[in-house]
């Protein structure tokens, strides 16, 4: 497999469209790049397409889904390479942590065996005491109490939070260049969530294979804006299958520009601030997606022209001509 060009992005997504068999236009022209060592958080409400994006990056979409555009992962064109190469990408080039840890584990395999197997599948390291000890050490790093005893237990004997940490361990054992984490902290306490994702990021940064190797990157899919703000370098805000705002995490949260981002930030709870402001209305149906800006039906800044024509493109990191002053 080719290494990425020096200074090049680990992940480049170009004009990616995904339409499911039922006609749902889940992704409608996504352009994203993730640099080595960078954590990009993709945020947005349920149904905005963020999990489809993670699935599409790994070529794990159902065969019936229509895909247009390209995904370049560490120099490999994910949709142009043979299926066997795409399989090797998963686990070696990219690791995946899914939302529900219970469904990610084989109930009749010990938890430690999952981590050992993830390591063996791609590294060809023989199973043995050394690999087992290494697994126990990894679980200890992830703050699993009594890791020697716990590693021998079955998934049902672990809490969801502990299992998610084991899933993170299994996904990162082969030092992937990109870790895709799809709502990895949904089952964790808030304090643990921040620590786990920060710890994960630090692991990705420190486990580079040599001085000439760039640190790994992370694509974090989450609906927890506060978590994203804590751990991400950049944020991409998705709505109805499109990126509507992208920029440095602190800037997007501190000075949101797109009306949808503003509504998300207003819905974040803060100490002493009372009940947060909900975002009224629902995502529009995407079968097919409405013309113009899909958020216009819920937007207080919407003008008549917003609901017509092609969806507004990203200009200076925000896809809203009203905010950028491009609307005449």
């Amino acid at each position, binding site marked *: 497999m080719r290494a990425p060009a020096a200074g090049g992005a680990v992940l480049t997504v170009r004009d990616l469209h995904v339409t499911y068999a039922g006609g749902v236009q889940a992704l409608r022209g996504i352009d994203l790049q993730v640099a080595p060592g960078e954590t990009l958080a993709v945020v947005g409400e349920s149904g905005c397409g963020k999990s489809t994006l993670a699935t599409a990056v790994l070529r794990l979409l159902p065969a019936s889904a229509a895909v247009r555009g390209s995904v370049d992962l560490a120099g490999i064109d994910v949709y142009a390479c043979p299926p066997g190469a795409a399989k090797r990408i998963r686990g070696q080039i990219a690791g995946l942590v899914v939302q529900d840890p219970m469904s990610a584990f084989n109930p009749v395999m010990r938890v430690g065996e999952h981590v050992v197997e993830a390591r063996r599948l791609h590294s060809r390291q023989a199973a043995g005491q050394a690999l087992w000890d290494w697994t126990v050490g990894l679980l200890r790093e992830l703050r699993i109490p009594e890791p020697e005893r716990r590693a021998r237990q079955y998934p049902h004997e672990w809490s969801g939070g502990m299992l998610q940490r084991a899933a993170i361990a299994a996904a990162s054992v082969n030092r992937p260049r990109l870790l895709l984490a799809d709502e990895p902290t949904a089952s964790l306490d808030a304090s643990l969530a921040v620590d786990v994702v920060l710890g994960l990021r630090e692991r990705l940064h420190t486990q580079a294979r040599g001085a000439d190797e760039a640190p790994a990157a992370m694509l974090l899919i989450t609906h927890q*804006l506060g978590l994203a703000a804590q751990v991400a370098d950049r944020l991409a805000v998705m709505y109805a299958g499109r990126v509507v705002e992208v920029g440095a995490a602190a800037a997007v949260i501190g000075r949101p520009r797109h009306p949808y981002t503003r509504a998300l930030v207003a819905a974040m709870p803060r100490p002493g601030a009372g009940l*947060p402001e909900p975002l009224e209305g*629902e995502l529009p149906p995407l079968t097919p997606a409405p013309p113009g800006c899909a958020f216009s039906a819920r937007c207080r800044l919407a003008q008549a022209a917003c609901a017509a024509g092609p969806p507004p493109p990203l200009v200076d990191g925000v896809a809203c001509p009203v905010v950028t002053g491009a609307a005449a």
Partner: protein
Amino acid sequence: MNGANDSAEPVVRLQDVTVRYGKTLALDGVTLDVRPAERIALVGDSGCGKTTLLSVVSGYRTPTAGTVQRRPGTRTGLLLQDPVASLNPGWTLEQLVAEPLRDRTPRPDRAARRAAVQRALSEVRLGGLDLSRLPHELSVGQCQRVALARALVTDPTLLLADEPTSALDPSVAAGVLRLLDAVLTATGAALLVVSHDVLAVAPLVHRMLVIHGGRVVEDGRPDDLLARPAHATTRRLADTAHRLAATAPLAPAGPAGPAGPGQPVAAGWPAGGPTVAPSGPKRST
């Protein structure tokens, strides 16, 4: 609508409640009164015993030791974490919301059931929805409102909620929290809510109990606990709450609506806590 009444007989009284799962001590001598209209959050790390405490109050679990007394006539409603998983996918909206009425004696007739269903759906602002709809035809936010309607259909005096917003997007969660606040204010029901999201539930409740190792280690007003945490668990929860909120500047008071580029967002939030005036037991020392 009055706040919790200290002098009123508790809706539920727990005395020295202990629960063991085999060798594991899940609850260790918990004593708690929940007064009428009082809203209490149970917070703490995973495995601390907060959900076990909720299941004891609901009657689902019998304590290993200690007593649970419910005021005669107390009716409980239960709201669970995952709104989609908690609804039978093959049942219509009417069947889903009417189900908790099956245990009422005398059992209401069909017309009374339908009236109760429509009242409960109106309370959660789903009054206009077709009663023959199935869960997959609803959004996640609507599913959580249906789950709340199920909890309200028996006209509960005590609402029990287990992580009611943790599976929801913040924008949807904010709507559910506001709806809970409005419903509790309108019905006067007491609330016992389990959450690991201290920030989300703090503005909803009068009182927060921090659970650690099966014990109540701190008990007080949410704002006090967040500002002056005493126990290590509370300090960590408060620290996380402040960290998660720190990147977003506090919204200045002002008109609601998006600000211009480069300006902090003006959310126009009301200050303070729940609509019902806080009362009930004060912070333990």
